[in-house]
C-alpha cells in the first residue's frame, strides 16, 4: 500500500510539474511574452518574497534563540574557559549585528530597487573613499578580535616567546618599508603588495610578542596533577600517576591482557599507576594536565563544559591543561543546567526512559569508526577531599595485574 502511495505521489508530482510548465508556456504564448523578460507583476512578487523571507528568517532565528540558546552549554567550568566565553560573547554580538544588518540591507535593497519601482539604474561604478571605509572598518574590528583572541589562546597554552620574534618582526617591517620606498624600478602594485604584506606580518610578529608576553601567567602555580587519557576504538581509559606522582613509561607493544594501556611493567613508576574506566574524577581548584594517547586511530578528547579539546594521535602524545572551577554538584544546581535537564527529562519521560542527571563528559570528537558515537567517559569534579577519598579507592596496576604477575615482576627485577 505504502509503495503504491509513494509511486502515486511521485507520478502526481511529475504530472503537476508538467502541467505547471505547460500552463506557464501557454499563458506566455498567449500574451506574446518571453521567458527572458520578467513581467513587472512577477518582479513585484519576487521583491515581496524577499521581504517575507527576511521576516521569516529573523522570526525563526529569534525563536531558535529563545528555545535553544538556553539548551546550549552552561557557563564554563574551568578557569581559562571563562575567558573563552568572554571572547565568544563579544564575537557572537558582533557576528549577530553583521548578520542582521547585512541581510536587512540586502533584502530591503532587493525590495526597494526592484525593476517596476525604478525608472533607470544609477551608473555608479566605484567610489574609492567608500571602498576604503569598508576596508578599514572591518580591519580595525579584526585587529581587536585578533589581539583579544590571541591573548586568550596564548594564555591557555602559555606560549613562550623570546626576543627573536620581535627582532624578526622589526626586520620584516624594515624590509617591507624598504621595498616600498627604495625599489622604484618595480611596478607600483607589486611593490606595495609585497612590501605591504611583509610589513603586515612584521607588525603582527612585533605585536604578537607583546600579546604572548602579557598572557604568560607569572604567578608561581602549584604543580599540576597529571592524568593520562588513553583512547582506543571505542572507549576511554584514564590513568593516574599513583603515590609517586609519576606516570610509568608506556608503549603499545606492552599491551597485554589486563594491562590495556601498555604500561611498561619494568618501569617501577608504573606499578602504582591507577587505571580507571567509565568515569574519572578531578579536584576543583587544582590545575590538571592531561596527557593524551591513542593506540589505534585519531580520536579527539573533547570536554565541552571545560572548553577543552585536543586530538589523541597514535604515536604522538598530546596534552592540555585546565583548572576546574565548578564541582559536579554545583553545576547540577546551576540555573541553566537545571532548566536544560528538566526539559531533557520531560522528553525522556515521554519516551519512557529513565530521568538523568547532569554529568560532565569526555566525548570522542574525531570520526574513529563504527561506534564513534558511543565513545565517552563521565567526568566528576569533586571537592579536593572527596577527590582524595575516591582516588584512594582506585586499584593500582599491581593490584589489577594480580599477585602472580607481581611475583614475576620481582623475579625479573632480581635477575637484573
Amino acid at each position, binding site marked *: 500500500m505504502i*509503495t503504491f502511495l509513494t509511486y502515486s505521489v511521485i507520478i502526481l*508530482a511529475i504530472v503537476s510539474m508538467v502541467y505547471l510548465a505547460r500552463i*506557464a508556456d501557454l499563458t506566455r504564448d498567449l500574451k506574446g511574452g*518571453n*521567458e*527572458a523578460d*520578467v513581467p513587472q507583476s*512577477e518582479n513585484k512578487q*519576487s*521583491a515581496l518574497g524577499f521581504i517575507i*523571507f527576511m521576516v521569516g528568517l529573523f522570526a525563526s532565528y529569534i525563536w531558535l534563540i529563545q528555545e*535553544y540558546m538556553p*539548551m546550549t*552549554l552552561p557557563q564554563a567550568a574551568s578557569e581559562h574557559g571563562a575567558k*573563552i566565553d568572554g571572547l*565568544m560573547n563579544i564575537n557572537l554580538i*558582533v*557576528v549577530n549585528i553583521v*548578520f542582521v544588518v*547585512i541581510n536587512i540591507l*540586502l533584502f530591503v535593497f532587493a525590495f526597494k*530597487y526592484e*525593476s517596476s519601482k*525604478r525608472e*533607470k539604474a*544609477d551608473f*555608479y*561604478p566605484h*567610489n574609492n573613499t567608500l*571602498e576604503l571605509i569598508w576596508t578599514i572598518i*572591518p580591519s580595525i574590528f579584526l585587529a581587536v578580535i*585578533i589581539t583579544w*583572541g590571541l591573548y586568550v*589562546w596564548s594564555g*591557555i597554552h602559555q606560549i613562550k616567546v623570546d626576543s627573536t620574534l620581535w627582532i624578526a618582526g622589526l626586520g620584516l617591517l624594515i624590509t617591507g618599508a624598504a621595498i616600498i620606498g627604495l625599489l622604484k624600478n618595480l611596478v607600483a602594485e607589486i611593490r606595495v603588495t609585497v612590501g605591504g604584506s611583509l610589513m603586515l606580518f612584521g607588525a*603582527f610578529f612585533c605585536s604578537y610578542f607583546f600579546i604572548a608576553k602579557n598572557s604568560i601567567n607569572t604567578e608561581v602555580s602549584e604543580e599540576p596533577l597529571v592524568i593520562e587519557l588513553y583512547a582506543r576504538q571505542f572507549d576511554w581509559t584514564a590513568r593516574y600517576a599513583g603515590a609517586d606522582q609519576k606516570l610509568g613509561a608506556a608503549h*603499545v607493544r606492552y599491551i597485554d591482557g589486563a594491562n590495556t594501556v601498555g604500561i611498561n611493567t619494568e618501569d617501577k613508576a608504573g606499578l602504582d599507576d591507577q587505571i580507571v574506566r567509565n568515569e574519572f574524577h578531578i579536584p576543583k581548584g587544582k590545575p590538571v594536565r592531561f596527557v593524551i594517547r591513542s593506540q589505534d586511530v585519531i580520536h579527539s578528547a*573533547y570536554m565541552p563544559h571545560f572548553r577543552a579539546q*585536543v*586530538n589523541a594521535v*597514535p*604515536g604522538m602524545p598530546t*596534552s592540555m591543561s585546565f583548572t576546574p572551577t565548578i564541582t559536579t554538584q554545583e553545576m547540577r544546581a546551576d540555573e541553566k543546567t537545571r532548566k*536544560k535537564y528538566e*526539559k531533557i527529562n520531560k*522528553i*525522556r519521560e515521554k519516551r519512557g526512559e529513565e530521568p*538523568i542527571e*547532569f*554529568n560532565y*563528559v569526555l*566525548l*570522542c*570528537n574525531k570520526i*574513529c569508526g*563504527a*561506534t*564513534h*558515537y*558511543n565513545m565517552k567517559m563521565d567526568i566528576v569534579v569533586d571537592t579536593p577531599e572527596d577527590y582524595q577519598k575516591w582516588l584512594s579507592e582506585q586499584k593500582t596496576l599491581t593490584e589489577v595485574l594480580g599477585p602472580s604477575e607481581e611475583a614475576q615482576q620481582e623475579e625479573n627485577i632480581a635477575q637484573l
Partner: protein
Amino acid sequence: MGAHTHHHQESFITKYVFSQDHKMISKQFLVTGLVMALVGMLMSTLFRLQLGWQGESFKILNFFLGDKWAPDGVLDPNMYLALVTMHGTIMVFFVLTGGLSGTFANLLIPLQIGARDMASGFMNMLSYWFFLVASIIMIASVFVQGGPASAGWTIYPPLSALPQAIPGSGLGMTLWLISMTIFIASSLLGGLNYIVTVVNLRTIGMKMTRLPLTIWALLVTAILGVLSFPVLFAAALLLVFDRSFGTSFYLSDIFINGAALDVSGGSPVLFQHLFWFLGHPEVYIVILPALGISSEIIATNSRKPIFGYRAMILSILAIGFLSFIVWAHHMFVTGMNPFLGSVFTFTTLLIAIPSAVKAFNYLTTIYKGKLNFTPAMLFAIGLVSTFVSGGITGIILADAALDINLHDTYFVVAHFHIVMGMSAVFAMFAGIYHWFPKMYGKLMNRKLGYVHFWLTIVGAFGVFLPQHFLGLAGAPRRYYENTAFPMFDDFVELNEIVSIFAIIGAIGQFVFMFNFLYSIFRGQRSSQNPWKSNTLEWTTPVEHVHGNWPGALPTVHRWAYDYSKPGADEDFIPQTVPLAPGEQDEGNH
C-alpha cells in the same frame, strides 16, 4: 586572425562523445556534475532520516541500501559514516569543483575572452573523460563489499589506512584513492588549459582590466587548483604506500584488533598538513567561481556596473593568495605547536577583509539599481545572503581559542555548508539559469525556477541555521545517534525540523531537474542576447558553431559593465561597441 570555420562533417562520436569543442565539453561536465549532485543529495537525505528520527525504520533506506546496510529499514552505523564520507567527497570535488568549474570555465572562458576554443581542445577532452572515469569509479566504490570509504571526506589516516579500523577502509578506500588520483589529473589538465587560454587567447582589446569578473575568478581558481591539487596527489600517494606497500609515513605505534602493528616513525598529523594544503585552497576553488558568476549576474540584472571592479579583482587575488597560508586553521586541536595556531589565526582572519569588501560591493551594486528578478538573479541574491551569513561565523571559528570548543561540532557543519556549500550551489544554479540559453539555445521555465529558488533557500537556512545551536551545545558532527549522550536529548525536535527542511530542499531540486530536462526539449527558443548583457558570449549565434564566431573574432573596446551608462540610448553597451569620442573606459581609469 581571419575567419576560420570548420566545415568538415563531424560524426556523432566526435560531436557528442569525444568532443573537443569547449561548449560540448562544458555540457558534458554539467550533466555529469548534476548526476553526481543528485547522488550526493540523495545520500544526505538518507542520513538525515537517521539523524532526524534516530533508530526508526524507513522503507526508503532499505529500498536504496538493501538488507545489508539498512536491515529492517534502519541505517547501519558503518553505512552512516560511509554516506557522510561520500556525500562530502562527491559534493566538494565532483559537484562544486568538477561540476562548477568544469562547466563554467569551459563554457565561459573562450566565449567571454573572445577565443575560438580552449588552447588545447584535446587536453580539454581528456579533462572531461578523466572526470567521468573518476566519477564512475567513485560511484562504483559504493557497491563493493565492506562499503565505500568511510573515514570522512578528509580521509585522515590511520582510520583510512587500516582496513581493521573500519570496513570502508578496504577496497572502498582503494577505489576512493584511485578515483581521486584520476580526478586530480582531470583537474590539472583543465586548470592548465584555463590559465593558458585566459593568458594567451584573449581577443584584440580584451585587456586584463576589461575581463568580466567571472574570468578573473575562474583564472585565479585554476591557478589555485594547479598549485594545490598536486599536494593532495602526493598525500594520497603516500597513503597508498602505507596501505599497500608496508611503509609508515602516517602510521606509528599502533595496536589494533589485538595486535601491535610493525609501524613506527610516521605522523598522522603530516597527512593533515598535506591534505589541508590542498583542502583549504579547495574551498576557495569552490567559492571563487561562485563569486565570479554572481558578480556577473548581479550586475547584468541590476542594470548597473559591478561596484568597485578593481577592488573586486584585488579581493579575488587577495583571497587566492591568503588561501595558501591558512590551512592549519583546520588543525588547531591536533596537538600542533600552539605558536603556529597563533599565526594561522592571524592569516585566517585577514581573509575576512577582502570577503567583506566583496559583500559590501555586492550591496552597493544592488543599491539604486533596476533589479530584474530572473531565477538567476534570485539565486545570486540568495548567494550574497548565504555568503555573508555563513562567512561571519568563520570569524568565530578562525579564532584558535574559540575553535577549541567548536572544532568538529555542528557549528562547523553549519558554517561551511552555508558559506561554501550553499553559496556555491546557489551560484551553480544561478549560472545554469543564466547561461542555459547559451548552452542549449533555449530558456528555462521561469515559474518553475521561482518554485525551485524559494524551496532551495528555505531548505538551506532551515537545515543549517538550527545546526549552529547544536554546535553551541557541544554536539559533535558525524555522530550516528546520541543514545550515549542524553545531554543532547533536548535537541530531538530540532533534529527532526532540520531533516524536514532537508527533505523540502531535496524536493526543490527535483523541480529543477524537471525544469532542466523539460526546457532542453520544450523550452522557449532564446534570442541571441536574452538578458541584454554586455559580455562577448552573447555576440555569438544561438546555434553553436565550431569556432564560436562565424566570421572574424570580435574586437573589444570597453569593460564588461557599461550598464545604464548616462548618454547611451539603451541600458547596456556591449563590449564590442567602440568608445564614443570623449567617453572613458570605466575599468581602466
